[in-house]
């Protein structure tokens, strides 16, 4: 993580034309290289916030800067060079007749040379082991594959920041982990990853920072550990921490210094205590 700020929202507010206030005075700063989860129940403003990061929505009050660009002034294509956005429903973005064309669509629109297009499409397909689908119509694939195609078609534009809205909906756990592992790898290459999810276990296992949204505002913003150990706010946001974190909260004396987020965290803490024979 560097000091470079890639997203900076100041009093960001968005009121939809029907009068619904989806975001209220949101202040948020995201730095290059972060792996950040945005959580909260439906209608809390997560997707509206995400759509401000890619410039699809503009603030109705306040402002947001993305890679230094004021989104009210920058064009969507200028922002698209920096920020990739994967929709929750892949079918909302798939528009071409073959997987290859779908992946080439974005970089072509951004004016990549045909040589560059070929290179980025090839590399991206390889990253997901999707070469075999190159000539297949995207809509002939299953939902899980379509989601991966959608993700790929954004990656071919080589964005520095990736916003992924519910990357694991409709996927089974193995596929969910595959997607998360890919995001982790991209993060390892220096990309900033912002993902929205309902799966708290994935937040605990992959994100380093979590932002809880509720009623269009940020309820809590901190390290994943900090966020999941704040049982009061978690409950207020009507969320549930991962099982293991919940279990740890019932043994506070053991975990007073560090909230376990994974089974491994939990085990390494209790293992020394287990050596001694039980008193009962």
């Amino acid at each position: 993580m560097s000091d470079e700020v890639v997203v900076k929202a100041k009093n960001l507010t968005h009121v939809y034309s029907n009068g619904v206030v989806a975001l209220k005075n949101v202040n948020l700063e995201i730095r290059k290289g972060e792996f950040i989860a945005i959580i909260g129940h439906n209608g809390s403003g997560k997707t509206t916030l995400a759509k401000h990061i890619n410039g699809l929505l503009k603030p109705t009050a306040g402002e947001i800067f993305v890679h230094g660009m004021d989104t009210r002034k920058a064009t969507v294509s200028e922002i698209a060079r920096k920020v990739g956005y994967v929709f929750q429903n892949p079918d909302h973005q798939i528009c071409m007749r073959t997987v290859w064309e779908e992946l080439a669509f974005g970089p072509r629109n951004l004016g990549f040379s045909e040589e560059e297009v070929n290179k980025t499409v090839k590399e991206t397909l390889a990253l997901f082991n999707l070469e075999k689908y190159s000539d297949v119509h995207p809509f002939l694939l299953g939902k899980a594959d379509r989601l991966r195609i959608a993700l790929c078609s954004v990656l071919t534009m080589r964005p520095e920041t990736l916003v992924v809205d519910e990357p694991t909906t409709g996927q089974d756990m193995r596929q969910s982990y595959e997607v998360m592992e890919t995001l982790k790898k991209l993060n390892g290459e220096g990309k900033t990853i912002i993902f929205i999810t309902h799966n708290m276990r994935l937040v605990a296992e992959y994100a380093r920072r979590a932002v809880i949204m509720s009623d269009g505002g940020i309820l809590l913003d901190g390290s994943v550990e900090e966020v999941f150990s704040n049982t009061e706010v978690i409950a207020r946001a009507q969320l549930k921490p991962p099982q293991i974190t919940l279990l740890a909260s019932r043994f506070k004396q053991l975990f007073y210094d560090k909230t376990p987020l994974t089974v491994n965290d939990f085990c390494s803490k209790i293992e020394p205590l287990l050596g001694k024979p039980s008193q009962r």
Partner: protein
Amino acid sequence: MSYRKPIVVKSFSWRYATSQDWVLHDINLEVNEGEFVVITGPTGAGKTTLCLSMCGLIPHHYNGIIRGNVYVFGNDTSKLSSSDLASLVGIVFQDPESQFLTMSVEDEIAFGLENLAVPLDEMRERVAEAAKLVKIEDLLDRAPYELSGGQKQRVAIAAALAMKPKVLILDEPTGQLDPIGKEEVVAVLKKLKDEGITVVVVEHILEELTPFADRLVLMNDGRILYDGDVRRFFENESFVKTTGVPVPQVTELGLFLRKTVAGVNKIPISVEEAEDLLERLLPVRSVVGRSSS
């Protein structure tokens, strides 16, 4: 006779007219009265196809090739009429909107009853009863599309329950819901079990359901790989790994404890069970309580 059981799937195979291979291969499955059965498995395993077969939508509304039989309370589904099937087996899909047709929750719940020409008084009673069971009594005048995900799914469940089916099949009912919606639906499922309704649920994430599931059925590639006790399934660690089924975190902890210390006879499948186990293995609270006093 065993065929009187709510559902008996016998040497059943199916391929859609459009599919290149069999989607279900020689499935044998029995669901007993009052049982709560969870079906899991990766995407493409055939779970949804099995649901459609158990409620009779296959073969009545799909083209394909069939082998073997599915019996619902002793009746071969391929020989029953849609309306007979509808009063025996209810089905709820992952996307509740896919089954909504009307402009009010009340009409939605009544829709199936209207089709069966149930008398008005009885219809009112059954709608009220179903709405109460899933706690949507105060939503009856609302339009289904303006509800939250969890509310929509409960409307879909109420619509199925109003038909008074003897078995309710739910295909990933919480798949598209946020945490609140999930909890609402899981609470309803638990209540259905307590009411003695036979329930078959397809789910990917098991930790919410394992505490009260009677049986787990694992599918892959159109076959049943496991059918039995939930706890016993997770106890077979090396097998579970090959299946890709996510192990609940507390169960994972239990497996670690079993390897590390003596006295772990039963691995936990709920947070409460894990809490009890830990208290027994390391009486932390009392120990710490003493040392700090």
